Every structure is written in C-alpha cells, then in structure tokens.
C-alpha cells in the first residue's frame, strides 16, 4: 500500500494546520542525523486538542495508513499527557516520519476517545494506559486490565506521580532483603599505606566497638 504522493514533514504539518486550525495547539519538527552520511530522519510533534484526536488519526490514515508504535503517557501535575506515536511512509527508503500526537487530559476529566475503531491494534496500548495512568478510554472495545495482576488494588496507577501512584508500603526492595545487617570488621589496612590512615583508624574503632555478628544465623537453610 504505497502512498500516492510523499509529503515533506512541513507539508504534513501544514495539512493538519489547515484542516484543524485551532485544534492543533503546537507543532514542531525535529531532525536527527547520524552516521557518516548524516542522512536526516524526521520526527513530527503535534500538540492537539483532545477532541481533535480521533479526526486527526483519521486524517493521518488519509495520508498513509500509520503504524502505531505505542501510546506513552506522563503525569505532568494537573494533567495527564498522552502521546500517540505513529510512523508513516514506512516502506519508503529513508523516507519514514514519526508523527506524535499529544493530548493533555485534565485530571478532573481523564477521558479520551478510543482510536481502536480506526486502528484495531491500538486497543493493546489503550488498555495499558487505562491501568497505568487511570485515564478512561471512551468506547474501548476491550477494557480489561492488561499487565497488572487481578489482585492489584483498584485506584492505584503506577505511572501517576500524585496520591494515586504507587504508595511506599507497596514497594518491596528485594535487593535489601536478607542483607546481613552487621558484618564483622574488615581486616585493618597496614598503617604505613597512606594519608587516609587516620580516617580509617577512626572507622576501625567504630566498627570494632560493635559486637561481631553471628553471621551463621543469617544463612538460608
């Protein structure tokens, strides 16, 4: 499915600006060149209004059926931002653009329309955003949890940075489990070594003041 005509990144932005006017809040194009040839690759970023999302995806489909990479999301304080990362013009050598549509959802009303009716594969990422960020995807064909286990508490959203995020008590620092709390003193450094001896001696005194640990007790069976 080759697109009829290849637009430049600026033209892509212009298509959206013309069609949606104020629905496009901000747009920018980033360019990145790597390798010896410094061939550029382009990312298009469009901040759009929440209600423009669904028609904007429809517009993107009219340009070239986009590949939805993923939907990412950020808790930015009073709102949750969702970024829809698409790519278009894949299959054209060195001609692919990333198109990121960003919508901000105020925390008072965390709802966004589904795009799974246009791109069925989007439901996977939308399910993840529902459970991780607590947004509501209106009209989602399958609203079950995706990654979080069934017994995960309701109303806790791991990627949120406010009171609905992961609470302290829910985190178990596995790296700290079973660490021996009081190791026996480390062998002393020969005093003729260098200038840090004094500090080392102080430390030594503190360590030896502790009771040597019964290390055996800590052992697993």
């Amino acid at each position: 499915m080759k697109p009829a005509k290849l637009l430049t990144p600026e033209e892509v932005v212009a298509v959206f600006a013309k069609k949606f006017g104020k629905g496009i809040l901000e747009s920018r194009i980033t360019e990145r060149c790597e390798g010896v040839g410094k061939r550029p690759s382009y990312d298009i970023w469009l901040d759009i209004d929440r209600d423009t999302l669904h028609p904007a995806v429809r517009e993107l489909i009219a340009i070239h059926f986009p590949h939805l990479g993923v939907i990412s999301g950020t808790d930015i304080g009073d709102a949750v931002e969702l970024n829809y990362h698409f790519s278009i013009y894949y299959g054209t050598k060195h001609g692919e653009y990333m198109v990121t549509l960003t919508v901000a959802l105020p925390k008072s009303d965390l709802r966004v329309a589904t795009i799974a009716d246009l791109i069925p594969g989007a439901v996977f990422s939308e399910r993840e955003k529902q459970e991780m960020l607590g947004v509501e995807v209106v009209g989602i064909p399958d609203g079950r949890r995706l990654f979080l286990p069934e017994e995960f508490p309701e109303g806790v959203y791991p990627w949120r940075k406010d009171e609905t995020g992961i609470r302290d008590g829910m985190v178990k620092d596995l790296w700290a489990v079973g660490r021996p709390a009081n190791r026996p003193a480390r062998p002393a450094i020969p005093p003729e070594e260098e200038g840090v001896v004094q500090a080392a001696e102080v430390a030594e005194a503190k360590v030896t003041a502790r009771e040597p640990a019964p290390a055996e007790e800590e052992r697993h069976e």
Partner: protein
Amino acid sequence: MSDDPQKKMTPYTVPIGPTHPALKEPVMFTFQMNGEQILKADFAPGQTHRGIEWMGMRRNPVQIVHLTDRICGICGVSHSLAFARAMEQIMEIEVPERADYVRTIIAEFERIQSHLLWAGVAAHELGFDTLLHLTWRVREQAMDTIELLTGNRVNYGIIQVGGVRRDFTPDQFPAIEETLQYYSDLKSKLLKIFLEDKTIQMRCRDCGVLSYDDALKLCTVGPTARASGLNMDVRVDYPFAAYGDLAIEPILPDAYMGETRGDVFDRIVVRLLEVDQSVDIIRQCLDRMPAGEVIAEPKLAKLLNQFKKAHGEALGRHEAPRGEVLHYVRMDGKEHPTSWKVKASSYSNLMSWIPMLEGEQIADIPIIVASIDPCLSCTDRVAVVRSGERGIMTKEELHRLSVEKTRRLSA
C-alpha cells in the same frame, strides 16, 4: 449425525499458561476448542510484569542504560541503543561516527544470534529437537564473537549515552571476519535443512496465516510484519546509527519464495534470510568504518551532571531482531526521567496471535505462538489458584514449603 448444532459442537476450554512447555515465557492463553480445532483464543500478558518503566523513572540514565540491557535477555543492545538515542536527542549530543558503526555491528551480531535462537526454539516447538541442537550450536559462534567484542555473552553493556563504552581493537578484526565467513558458508545448509524438509513444510505451510490487512491494522512489526508482505524495516525506512550509509533492502518472503502467504513458513524464510543480510551489513560496516573516538563524553561524572540540565522529550527507535523497539523519554531537569515508555517489539506483535490462532489446531499452538518470536519476561513468583482464590507465593515461601515437604517425606 445430529441436526442440532448445539449437540455437534461442544466447545470446551483448554488453558495454556501461565507456564507451559509450549511457552518459553509466561503468558496465559484460554482457548475455546471444538475437538482439536480452536474456535476462540484469548490471552493475558503481564503474568510477570516487572515494572521496568517504574524502576527507570527512579534511576538516572546511566543506570537505565544497563536496565535496558535487561529488558530482554536476547536483545541485549536493541533497547540500550534506542534509549541512548532518545537521550542523545534530548541532550543534543553528537555521537561520534565510529560509535555509530560499532553500535550497528553489535546490533547485527545480535540479530544473527537472536534469529538462530528463534529458529532453534521453533524447531523444538515442532518436536524437531535435532534442529534445535544444530542451530544453537552454530549460534555459539555469534555469541563468542559478541563476548569477544563486548566482554560478556548476554548483557553486553556496550552502549553508553553518547557512544559506546568499548572500541574494537585491531586484533579482534580477524575473529570477526572468521565469524562472518562461518555464517556465509553455513547459509545454504541452513536454508536447505529448514526449507526443504518435508516435515517442516507439512507443519508450517499455511499454518498461522496473518493477512496483510491484519498485520497492518494490528500494528505488527519486524519479521512478523514482513512475512505478511508489509514492507516495514526501521533500518531501511528511518536512517539512524550507520544504517543510513549502507545499502540494505528489507527482506520480504516473495523475493525468495515467489509469493507471500503470511504463514509460519514465511516467517522462517524471512528470519533465515535476515541472518545472511546481517552478515552483509557487518561486512559493509567494516569496509566503511571511520576512525576516531567512540564516545562523546568519556567522563561519566560530567555526563551525570549534564542529565540534570536536560529538558525535553524524544523518541529513540531501533529495528531489533523482533521488530521496531521504541523508547519515549522525557527529561525535566531532574536526574531521572519524568517519563519513560518502552515499547518492545513483542508489545506490537502479541495482538496478531488472535487471527493467527483461530481456526487452527491445538498442535499448531506452540509453533504459532513462537512464530512471532515473543519476548515477554520472567521473574520468580508463583501464582496459586485454588477454588477461585488467587494468591502469590514468593520465593521465600516456596523455599519454606519445600523444606517442610522434604522433612515430611524423609520422616
């Protein structure tokens, strides 16, 4: 023969998972079956979700680079590369050209070992263990080369924000050349053993078909998409690292087989041919590799300070062996990212299981599930389901129970 369809069709449910010999990693499938035929398939991923993104948002990018190494045990460089590229864009770091080439070469060696690993797993799922042993044996050559170049076999730890941590030394080039020659010589043998084998053809041809339309609409990536005729390869379409300088074309099955059927067999074809393509890419890289530095900022402490000044958001992409990986990073002047989203290739491909599986037989489940080369992730915990109640057992509890049981048995 009864006329009542209800009587003829007595669907029953077969659960496969969360752990099952057909699955190399935990995922929960539920199949509605009619005899041997699958009527409906459903799956629940996340049986062992590790919350890597959550961990990453509490670590600085130097730590995250090594965390990304461990997102996938096989893609040791893909995620690091994508993440580092996103960071470099945010911080506007110019990566030395030689580093781009080193990254590309390691990434292609990774593709060789990953595809061979997959070929072995696929053969095992078909009950063809000899092929598993054969492909894994030849895979060792790539693993050894990676170990030589990066230091370790699996978690390479070669990528750093701004470049790579190790340059190739002159004495390593003969070893690289030897490996490339090894795989060039092996190509025809591998193709013959996999593609001319009658039993593999019987099991894989027209099995697990994914149409072009489904591949497109379900957002599939990598060899899964290409086997369905979807021309999509980040290395070709979207120039990054050294790929923009090289002559590469995406591998599509009709070039070799004359037609695209989108079945398991086509996925084998694409992956096997990509092994050879990787050899070619590494050769091209070695020919064009410029001299110079391999890292923009060798002083790590300085780099750590720069993170605190970074503002902005960026995307890092890479064509991993399984398809596109995508990292979205957002830095807001803190040491750790405000937001980090990892899209692994299998994330995009899992949805394609449903159209592939429905209508097929139980016997095809393992190979179809494996055919997209799923890469989930594993951690140690056990979920116990008894009379509808669920509970998670930690390693400590399991250990205690085992000790108790041993005592009971030996008493």
